């Protein structure tokens, strides 16, 4: 800090530069690259990603052990056997994704933080001075959030599966990670978590506040379902099905359970829960002062 090089901002490029074409500007792929650099250069982001993986794999292993115990009991307990039958007879297949409730909380919060921290730190002024149209920066960040949440959930689910197979094997249960149902569960769960992260990012953009954004996310996914269950009345019972956190069950069901949404309906509902806040976030981001 004690010495600064003599001033030499550039070899007089300002004078000789062709005014008509100053050089490359913020194209979408350049902005995407920038957002990816921002994503990978924050230690806090890496810690959240690592904890998600640990939680997913840990829950997978724990759930494998619990499921094995349960299956053992089913051999002598007709009630437990009936419960297994109700699940389609295949308990093991849901083991790898058993940590999804926590993964969605962590990665949803990450979605909030990646945008809210832009505003709380003042980084947004740098970001939107470089990309004054704002929309490309938002979309690029959204792509980074969605892709990373999907990829991390998919990989963690697969590793959780690998960890679960030998444990289940001990109890005489078979888990085929390559079966159609396993693959479907992995893909749908990953897409679901990516959707939650996108909702989180939209909330972070709207509220511009980390605590507020995470609170809103928790309220929507964890508090609202309970509140809707507690309030008596057909309306709330029906409305409960349309909460974003309740769309995962119909989407991953082996076969349609009566009185629930069809898988495609649940997917549409979740899609609407993503699109609405994202569109609102974009409109306000374009309009508000940074």
């Amino acid at each position, binding site marked *: 800090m004690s010495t600064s090089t003599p001033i030499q901002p550039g070899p007089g490029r300002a004078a000789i530069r062709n005014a008509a074409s100053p050089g490359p500007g*913020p194209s979408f792929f350049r902005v995407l690259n920038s957002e990816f650099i921002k994503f990978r250069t924050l230690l806090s982001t890496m810690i959240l990603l690592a904890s998600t993986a640990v939680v997913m794999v840990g829950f997978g292993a724990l759930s494998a052990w619990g499921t094995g115990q349960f299956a053992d009991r089913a051999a002598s307990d007709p009630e437990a056997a009936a419960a297994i039958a109700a699940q389609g007879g295949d308990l093991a297949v849901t083991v790898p994704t058993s940590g999804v409730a926590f993964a969605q909380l962590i990665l949803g919060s990450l979605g909030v933080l990646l945008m809210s921290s832009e505003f709380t730190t003042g980084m947004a002024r740098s970001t939107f001075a470089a990309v004054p149209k704002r929309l490309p920066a938002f979309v690029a960040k959204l792509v980074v959030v969605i892709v990373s949440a999907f990829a991390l959930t998919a990989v963690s689910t697969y590793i959780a599966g690998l960890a679960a197979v030998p444990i289940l094997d001990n109890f005489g249960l078979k888990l085929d990670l390559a079966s159609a149902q396993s693959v479907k569960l992995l893909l749908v769960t990953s897409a679901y978590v990516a959707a939650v992260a996108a909702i989180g990012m939209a909330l972070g953009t709207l509220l511009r506040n980390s605590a507020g954004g995470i609170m809103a996310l928790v309220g929507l996914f964890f508090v609202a379902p309970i509140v809707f269950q507690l309030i008596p009345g057909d309306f709330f019972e029906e409305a409960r099905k349309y909460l974003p956190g309740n769309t995962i069950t119909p989407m991953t069901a082996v076969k349609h359970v009566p009185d629930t949404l069809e898988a495609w309906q649940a997917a549409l509902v979740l899609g609407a829960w993503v699109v609405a806040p994202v569109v609102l976030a974009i409109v306000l981001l374009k309009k508000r*002062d940074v």
Partner: protein
Amino acid sequence: MIEAEGLTKVYGDKTAVGGVSFTVQAGQVTGFLGPNGAGKSTTMRMIMGLDTPTAGTVTVNGVPFARHTAPLREIGALLDAKAVHTSRSAYNHLLAMAATHSIPRNRVHEVIDMTGLAEVARKKVKGFSLGMGQRLGIAAALLGDPQTIILDEPVNGLDPEGVVWVRNLVKYLASEGRTVFLSSHLMSEMALTADHLIVIGRGKIIADAPIKDIITGKGQSRTRVRSDQPDRLMHVLAGTGVSVELQDHELLEVTGLDPRQIARSALDNQVLIYELTPLQASLEEAYMELTKDEVEYHSLITTGAPVPAQSGGN
């Protein structure tokens, strides 16, 4: 070149910037001077497209900032020393900024060396002093080698060596034909750095002139006069555009007449004067004079302990 036309920003019922028009020319350092809260930062944020003007327009090289195809290569700005995610290193911050415009990695190293940040570039910005934060902000502003450079209070928090460095840097940039627009609330800093001065107070432009004119223009016509007939002299000198103030027994301060005119009137009217001193206002005084009615907060200092600042009454 930066051109503002009727630029206005209203927050609720408070007008931060009230219809200012000015032009910042290339090839010189233009100072943007005003007390805190005068609207300097708001104006600069509007130039950068971060705040939308309530009314009016501002263009950089004839085009609104957001419409430039490569904004960082047109305009570099230091708006806030900590417009940075403080958990990221200075190098990674600049790298992410550079990536948006495909600015090569070696340019990132160049601006780091140029701003004297080489030793700390890999450290988190969180631990930076205000001065280091300013250097990082200046590095970011220079990243795209822009034709126009906007710096909001760049010397804030810099050590004396850094202050001199910024002074030389902005002069050098202007000498290369770039447009340099620099804000400060310190008149003394402007006196040493700027070629042209735009003075703002309470959201309005108070002065827009070459710095020389501002120093001389305001001070020239004040003259201190002592006479044993102050009342009679006051009467004699009175006229349009002339103000005479009795400051003490036999001491007058005359504004609006030069010493020769005062001496002539005194002689014609047989009034003895025994002091005639032209008062050259310092830039600091000229600034105070310009903005005394425009500052939002005055401090009342009586003999003894300073009194907390009160909200301005005029």
